[in-house]
């Protein structure tokens, strides 16, 4: 689709001006972005990942796909021919740029792009989407703000530093093992613009004068820090490795980690727990409890051989509010290589039996490797639950990361407390005897004889 003459009266604001001719000054890429991309998604992992404007099943020729992958980390600098009505007040950089690292994981971001590019600009131009910085590896960033094909190149802006350009969309959609991950890949703007500045300065003089127009990086301080407790919560998220299986977990005390049974199914099994915050640490432990396969609660508890230093103890929530802002922290996507990802959403449902919450649902993006991880209240930072699964349609195989299920911490807290104070597993064992209504609620978790389960 291209820029269509279409209606220039615009339902979302003043009339669009006619498109302006432009010329390509240069194509540029950020070497550090490409290096991180190669290390995270290249080599053996290349088979697992797909970045494209189209779903895995869409007809895209291999050549096209290869072209898309090659161009993924490339951006273009254009000079736009001046219009008659260019006003003096518009002179100079139109935006400030956030220095690399100025935005922390879990911080709010606003993506702005035009789904389907130039198709229907009167409807789609500059469509906004909100999310958070989910993860970062150098200038390679991930966000859970919803981006669609056509938004490649769109800007992603920060709340703090206020309105600063943080990144551009490199790939709006990505799939891991054919499962939609629900995250978009971004390239940080600061190193990209710095690369443009260096190259422009080395070109003939009129291009070099353009270098002065490139936006500056926003100097610190960037206003009042956001009182975001999520980074704190993220610190209690750990990676749990049991044999060849790994998933996420929550250090509820310095010696006790809760995860999912399907991550650490066998009592007595040895488990390696990785924490990344405040510092990287690996501690062995063993599974002291795992619910039965028949239990509706997919939970396991690991006791560590020594304490996890400096990991803050999450405060367990006592009640839940449908609609409240929540965050999930998990080691899906990158596993150990890059620390946990943070995704944001709302508590979409609290399912109760006899007025007791037994299941939580959220709209956060939850993908393979996240199970066992913590679900937090974004504003209070309280621990709400343990992520157990997202959703898969067994008929189509489609995965829905934004519909997922967690075990409320109120179900577990009394038993965990009893065990950590007395070493008695009795209360934990009660999880195996949950009443039938609870089993009915969690019935989708049970294995279907012929089809794969909706597990992470």
């Amino acid at each position, binding site marked *: 689709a291209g820029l269509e003459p279409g209606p220039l009266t615009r339902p979302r604001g003043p009339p669009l001006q006619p498109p302006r001719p432009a010329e390509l000054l240069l194509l540029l890429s950020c070497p550090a972005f490409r290096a991180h991309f190669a290390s995270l998604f290249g080599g053996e992992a290349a088979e697992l990942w797909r970045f494209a404007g189209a779903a895995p099943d869409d007809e895209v020729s291999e050549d096209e796909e290869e072209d898309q992958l090659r161009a993924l980390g490339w951006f273009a600098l254009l000079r736009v021919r001046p219009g008659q009505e260019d006003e003096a007040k518009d002179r100079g950089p139109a935006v400030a740029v956030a220095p690399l690292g100025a935005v922390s994981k879990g911080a709010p971001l606003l993506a702005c792009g035009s789904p389907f590019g130039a198709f229907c600009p009167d409807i789609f131009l500059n469509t906004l989407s909100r999310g958070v910085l989910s993860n970062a590896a150098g200038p390679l960033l991930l966000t859970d703000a919803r981006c669609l094909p056509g938004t490649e190149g769109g800007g992603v802006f920060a709340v703090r530093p206020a*309105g600063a350009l943080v990144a551009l969309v490199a790939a709006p959609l990505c799939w891991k093992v054919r499962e939609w991950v629900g995250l978009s890949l971004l390239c940080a703007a600061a190193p990209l613009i710095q690369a443009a500045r260096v190259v422009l300065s080395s070109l003939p003089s009129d291009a070099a004068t353009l270098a002065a127009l490139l936006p500056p990086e926003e100097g610190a301080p960037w206003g009042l820090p956001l009182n975001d407790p999520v980074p704190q919560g993220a610190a209690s998220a750990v990676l749990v490795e049991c044999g060849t299986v790994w998933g996420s977990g929550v250090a509820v005390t310095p010696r006790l980690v809760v995860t999912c049974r399907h991550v650490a199914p066998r009592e007595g099994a040895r488990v390696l727990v990785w924490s990344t915050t405040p510092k990287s640490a690996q501690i062995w432990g063993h599974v002291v409890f795992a619910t039965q396969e028949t239990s509706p609660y997919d939970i396991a508890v690991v006791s560590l051989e020594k304490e996890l230093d400096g990991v803050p103890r999450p405060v367990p929530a006592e009640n839940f509010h449908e609609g409240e802002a929540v965050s999930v922290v998990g080691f899906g996507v990158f596993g150990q290589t890059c620390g946990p990802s943070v995704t944001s959403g709302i508590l979409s449902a609290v399912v109760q039996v006899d007025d007791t919450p037994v299941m939580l649902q959220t709209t956060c993006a939850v993908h393979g490797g996240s199970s066992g991880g913590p679900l937090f209240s974004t504003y209070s930072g309280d621990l709400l639950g343990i992520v157990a699964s997202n959703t898969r349609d067994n008929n189509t195989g489609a995965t829905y990361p934004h519909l997922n299920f967690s075990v409320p911490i109120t179900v577990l807290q009394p038993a965990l407390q009893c065990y950590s104070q007395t070493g008695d597993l009795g209360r934990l064992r009660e999880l195996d005897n949950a009443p039938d209504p609870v089993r009915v609620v969690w019935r989708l978790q049970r294995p279907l004889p012929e089809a794969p389960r909706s597990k992470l």
Partner: protein
Amino acid sequence: MGRRWGSAMRAAELTGCVVSASRAGQPEAGSWSCSGVVLSRSPGLVLCHGGIFTPFLRAGSGALTADGAAFLPGNSCTDDLRLHVLWSPTAASSSGRAERGRPGLCTPQC
């Protein structure tokens, strides 16, 4: 979206744009488009995604993965490349009327 998001929204509205690439004299070949960011309005300087330029690269997309390639000059693309940039006016207002979208993409009742 509240004051918290005000600056980000303003920046997005001011700098968001769409870039379209096509071949001179070959409208039937269609065009390629993506989103972009206006770094400077006057003079106009835009940063957008490089993917829409691969069909125009003289040396093909392989040039993007050549060792040490961190930038390619403007003349790496063929001479028949035509670019257009569409950005929204700087002042936003709510006037205007709704128009239905075009065939090819629809918003089914669900």
